[in-house]
């Protein structure tokens, strides 16, 4: 099978490439700025995609914000003649970016990927997010992208990961973004008080579990055509549990989660106020809401259960962060 993966340099995209290539598929990894594709184990060997589908992973530089992903017509034709499945994992996932960036990459990027899929009659596997309630610009853009997918009339499946974190087995992750940035600010004491509630829930899903599900959806696309499949840990951790877990680590500082209705940012020190405004503010809904997800559709399709979830998984993530020096 030939599979085209957008966002192949991203956390999920790279893991998907690795799995599909290991299963014997010809994978065309589409990346934007990165010239390499690396999963949590390291760089995946690639060859330049010159128009022929070959075993393993070949790479092609694209720009999803442009029609035809910025590819020359000949390359588009080659891809479209390849009877490919398209995994669309390209997205800006960091919080706090300008809406125009989300619109260009996450919304129009999806429209361009859909156009390519339509032209090549490609089954479309769309990597979205479980958090599509629209709490911030990122979520709104992912929600809009899902609407495009559903309205396209194409054969598509939507995968909705929750908060993507390190692997189940070791907690390893290639890049520390989003959740990890907030985590670091918290345990290093950069923010002493945050607006939040101890019963707020965070669903953490291991990147390998997400990638397994995406790869499974590619393999068995016919069984899940038209479906939306949450990719979740299934055992969300509360901020109380996070707080208790942090207590296991002598070096960790633990923030005070102050109910949002009485939290006052103006009481923070200037340094803490800066972190609050730049980072914490972006995560307020996550620190406040008891969001949980229902994944019976996923469980009915994908039979691998999470090996480790909840607090045990979070402990493994923290240990990994300490082991490699991301946290101190």
């Amino acid at each position, binding site marked *: 099978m030939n599979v085209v993966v957008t966002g192949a340099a991203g956390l999920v995209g790279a893991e998907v490439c690795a799995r599909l290539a290991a299963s014997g598929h010809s994978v065309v990894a589409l990346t934007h700025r990165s010239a390499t594709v690396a999963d949590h184990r390291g760089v995946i060997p690639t060859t330049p995609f010159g128009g022929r589908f070959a075993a393993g992973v070949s790479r092609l530089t694209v720009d999803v914000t442009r029609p035809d992903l910025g590819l020359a017509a000949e390359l588009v034709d080659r891809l479209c003649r390849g009877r490919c499945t398209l995994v669309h994992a390209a997205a800006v996932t960091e919080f706090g970016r300008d809406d125009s960036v989300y619109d260009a990459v996450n919304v129009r990027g999806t429209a361009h990927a859909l156009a390519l899929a339509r032209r090549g009659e490609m089954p479309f596997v769309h990597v979205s997010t479980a958090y599509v309630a629209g709490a911030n610009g990122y979520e709104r853009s992912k929600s809009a992208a899902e609407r495009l997918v559903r309205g396209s009339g194409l054969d598509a499946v939507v995968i909705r990961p929750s908060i993507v974190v390190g692997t189940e087995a070791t907690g390893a992750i290639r890049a520390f973004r989003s959740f990890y940035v907030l985590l670091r600010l918290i345990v290093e004491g950069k923010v002493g008080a945050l607006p939040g509630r101890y019963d707020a829930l965070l669903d953490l899903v291991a990147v390998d579990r997400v990638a397994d599900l995406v790869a499974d959806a590619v393999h068995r696309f016919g069984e899940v055509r038209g479906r939306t499949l949450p990719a979740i840990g299934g055992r969300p951790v509360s901020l109380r549990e996070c707080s208790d877990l942090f207590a296991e680590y002598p*070096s960790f500082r633990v923030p005070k989660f102050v109910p949002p209705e009485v939290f006052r940012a103006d009481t923070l020190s200037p340094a803490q106020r800066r972190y609050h405004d730049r980072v914490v503010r972006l995560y307020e809904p996550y620190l406040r809401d008891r969001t949980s997800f229902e994944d019976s559709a996923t469980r009915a399709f994908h039979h691998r259960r999470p090996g480790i979830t909840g607090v045990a998984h979070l402990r493994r993530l923290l240990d990994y962060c300490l082991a490699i020096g991301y946290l101190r």
Partner: protein
Amino acid sequence: MTSPDVEQLLKLAMAEVHVPPGSAVVLEGSIAEGFGTPHSDVDFLVLVDGEDQPSMPTVLFLDGRRVEVRMRSVRQVAAQFDAALTAPDAEVLDRCQRLLGAVPMRGESLLRSARSAVSTEAFGDRVSAWCGERSRQALRYAQAMAQLAQADDAADWAAVGLLYAVKSWAARHGETYLEPKWLPAQLDRIEARAGGPQDLVRRYRAGVTGAACVDLAEEFGVTGCRVEPGGVRLRRVPDVTTWPIGDRVHVLRDGVDVFAFDDGAGEVWRSIVFDRAPADGVDLDVLAQFVRLGLVGLSDAAGDPVRPDLRPVTPPPGRTCPALSARGGAVVGPVTLVPLPAHRFCAAGLDLVWSNVLAENAREDLLGALAVGGAGAGEFAGRRMAQVACRGLFSAAGVHPLPPDDALTRSLGELPFIDGSLVELARRAERPPVSLTDLDYLVAEVRAHTGAAGFPSSFESAADWQRTLELGHDWLRLAAYLGAVLPISDAADLLAPRGTA
């Protein structure tokens, strides 16, 4: 002791203890092993071919000797042998060894049948392996403590490690009696059986110390006991958690013991990162103290734990009174064991914070009553302000639950850190006529005694209420972890799932 003596003692013992028919009786212990002295206890084991027997021995004093008669069923003995081969510990190995080395007195065939569960060679291997592991971990601990600059610990544990290395070697040479005190006699017997002095034994007897113990232990066959220089890593210990209260670091051990650290010890504790070496320049004496207290473990660079046969130390509880303030447990020196179980420490701390909130609340009520000229309401609020302020003194002493409010001021004298002038002030402030000056002075005095100076006016503004919550927050986190009952409904709301508080 001669055989007739033993036989005579057995007859006397059998007259005192009911022995089921068909049982075997053996002489076990040091006399049976040939190590006995005229002062040694005489130990008999009755092996019963029937129901399981109670563990406690019957202790008799016969003919000027202390005689112990222990009863075991055949099933119990079989279970002991099974445990010795699968999950041995010192007691099981000792029990099995005593039976294997016992001298039959009655029912030899039953004894032979019971002993057949394990061969002498297999048991010797097991004892050797067990002693070897104990030696290995003691020597690793010795080296780890040397790396933490704890010379005395290192020397003591090196000696222990070498001793068990010799015990391990001796077990491979047929000497499986577990008690270390008979090691010299065991070595004598090994040499006698070998027909002359043994070089290894000679070198052990000559005495070695420190790092040389590791070298010699290896020659006695205990390998894998080296910790590379600079290779010590700090290891997580289950059920040890960190709870800052204000600026003070507290560490909870096994959910029961609370250790309060002074600033220096707090810094050392904060420097600990699991699976890493101690931080550069850290106070190693304090770090070693954490290790002895079982607050942090040690491993080698490969992550293999260093596990000496050592239970965590518990120091004498801190004797400072009051035992706690709003900012945590009182400290005397780097590490102080709070003289209260964790639950009471936490409950008292929460009560202490809450007493300050209530004092602010009562003061608000009092000011309101005085403003409208309601004398009765003013007296009530003034009395309440005095009483809730005094609650803080009892809480600081670790009293929980608190005495009734009406009994507080007259019980103040029971608190050893309260002098007569404060008692008098409290009694005066509690009674009419209301004196806001006295009440404010009382509150200030109480706060000075309980580390709550500068407590915010909780009900004056949202900012003050937030400050109040933040002051109580650290206590609340610990309380929630311990599952304590929270005295403050707002606090419960802060920590508990919404809608359930």
